[in-house]
């Protein structure tokens, strides 16, 4: 409970405008500070290292997919926590694919299926932020 002093900053990248709009509002309601991008390349170019507490990426994006963006962000910021929020059906297959495509190993808890109730999403986000990396 001692770390509540600063507001947690989350970077959200999803090509669907309505999704970033909805999630930004919902998560801000729960007290998070959200920055969102609908273009992964723009998100990458304007990325600030050592600034965010968590990054949430969509996987299927036309300009650059989530796995590629993950690897590029990881180069810029080796420590930041990055998770995926995906509507993809083949959840486990995406997870399996990630093992080959990502530059590092990543647990199942870093994959969140959408849609998800806001309450559950917040619970998962808090869980990830508490986790020691």
């Amino acid at each position, binding site marked *: 409970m001692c770390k509540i002093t600063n507001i947690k900053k989350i970077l959200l990248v999803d090509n669907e405008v309505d999704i970033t709009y*909805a999630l930004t*509002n*919902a998560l801000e*309601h729960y007290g998070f500070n959200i920055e969102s991008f609908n273009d992964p390349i723009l998100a990458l170019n304007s990325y600030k290292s050592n600034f965010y507490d968590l990054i949430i990426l969509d996987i299927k994006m036309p300009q650059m997919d989530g796995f590629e963006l993950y690897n590029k962000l990881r180069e810029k910021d080796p420590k930041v926590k990055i998770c995926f929020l995906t509507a993809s*059906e083949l959840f486990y297959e995406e997870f399996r694919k990630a*093992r080959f495509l990502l530059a590092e190993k990543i647990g199942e808890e870093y994959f969140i299926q959408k*849609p998800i*109730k806001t309450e559950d999403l917040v619970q998962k986000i808090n869980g990830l932020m508490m986790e020691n990396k």
Partner: protein
Amino acid sequence: MVFGIFTYTEMEQTIKSEVLKKLEIVAKLKEKNFQDVFEQNNEKLNLVSSRYQLKVELDNYNKNTSNNNKTTSQKIMNKILNAIKPEITKFEDILVLNLSGIVVASTNNTYFGTIHSDDIYFIEGKRHNNVTILYKDKNQVLKSYLTGPLILNDKLLGVVTIFYNLGDLLSMFKVFEEQLATGEINLVKKDDNGDALIINPLRFNPDASLNLTVSKDRVDTPIIQSLLKNEKTFPETKDYRGVDVLAVTRYLEKLGWGLVVKMDKVEAFAPLENVKYITILSGIMVGVAIIITSTFLGNSISRPIKKLRDIMNEIAHGKFDSKIDVKGPREIEELAKQLDRMRSNIANTNTHLNELVQERTKKIENALSKLKENEEALEESNKNLVLANERLARQSKVQREFINITAHELRTPIVPIITLTELLYSKIQKENKSDKNLSKENEKKQEFLQVILRNCYRLYKLTEDILDVTKIESQTLKMNKERVELNEIIENVINDYKEIISKKRYGSDQIRLVFEPSKENNFLNADKGRLIQVLSNLLDNALKFTKEGNVIITIKKLKNQELMVSVKDSGTGIDPEILPQLFKKFATKSEQGTGLGLFISKNIIEAHGGIMWGENNSESNGSTFYFTLPTEKSNKTIEDGG
């Protein structure tokens, strides 16, 4: 005599070169079979031993002291191994062993925790990469390990071992051997003394496999020659039994194994053996006759003898057709008659033998061409299988892609709808709470939103159910099975539902959920998420139709070691009209459900090898739903029994 030897040598040469040619073809085919399979499997071993994540997890497993972390690493390692499993030819199992030789991950649960520190594959695997080790299992079936070290940042972490079955590969030898009375293939490797150890069960010695050795001093044998890397054809040599054979040797470079394809000389030259004696004998007799007649009787007796000599000359050149019919002194006529008898005998035998040789050669040729045909047919059918597989894989890929895209497109719009409605609802709820003069209008707004939200969830549930049904019907519903404990899973689901009941989501909080677990742990191989889905579906149904009273969940162990789970409610029971089609799609009379839940649940249970049914309680109100699940033990009894 000249004739006899000439004919014999000529025939011998023809047979030799024909037989050797065919043996070479067989040797080449077998060499290729083996090299291909082992090359592929070595690649697979490298695929496993170079998998970065596997090594990281093994490292974590070794370092971690907490059991929880160890289990996580173990799970990930198992998943990686299972993903690689289908790619390995004649695969049986993959083991990952830690430095103490204990199995920490495997595609086969029964290996977990077993110790192999003294086993050769562990000892060898620590030191060398891609070592092939052969052994016989308890049923005397020849198997093989491929083993190698797992190294991360120059640090040895453990050993990976792949087991696979050589049986099919070796049974291909039979196709060749069955075509001939004495055809045999020897596969050999060097043992610790440098002697040749027979790998395959031999036609002439079925117990030879990994038992029989041939001394390295017997350099004359094709077996030792093959291990000396001499790839030769042997028109005449002795094999390990000391029997004269025709043989072809090959050296399997990558394995360091020798291959000998051979056939007994007796069989190859069977027709010639007869030719040899009779022709040589006849030749000698003809020769002697000529010498006698020409020397002793001289020219003085002239014509009949000359005639006789001319005919004999013809015979000596292989012409047996002209009848010896000489008129002259009685002795000469007698001699001529004798010689003619001999001529016609030789002529007959010769024709007969020629036929025999031809027949025999034909047989060998037939046998070999049949063998080649078999090989080709096998290759062809293999190719077809590969093609069919590819086609299937493509089709199922298209289907999966379709479902994936549909899922993505259906779910995406639900995200902002649910998220923003939830947000709006919670904002209005908060406002209304703090508003002391709450207007009817605002109360209505909150109600509207609640209805919208409820239907959002319903739409979401329907989307998920329809996707499941699509997967079931296109047979792409995949189970991600792992080792799970059933008591624990049910306990967790029940706790979730207890909380939901307490929030009056089912209208009443007067329903008691009772769990009667079985006393022991029940481990089974199942998709945890899918089991939770089935249990939730049954509980949700039970709670929807029960206003008050008990909902009882029990686990029972059946005689065949399978588990039977039942969910018994005290609600309104199943409508008799619905009962016959209970598990069909959209078989609901309820306004709340999608009518797909039981259809999906039944399919999930069946995908686990269990069955599901439901009935109205005979002694009380309500209904009971049952499903069965095979356990690790019940699977074993099935295997043992069949």
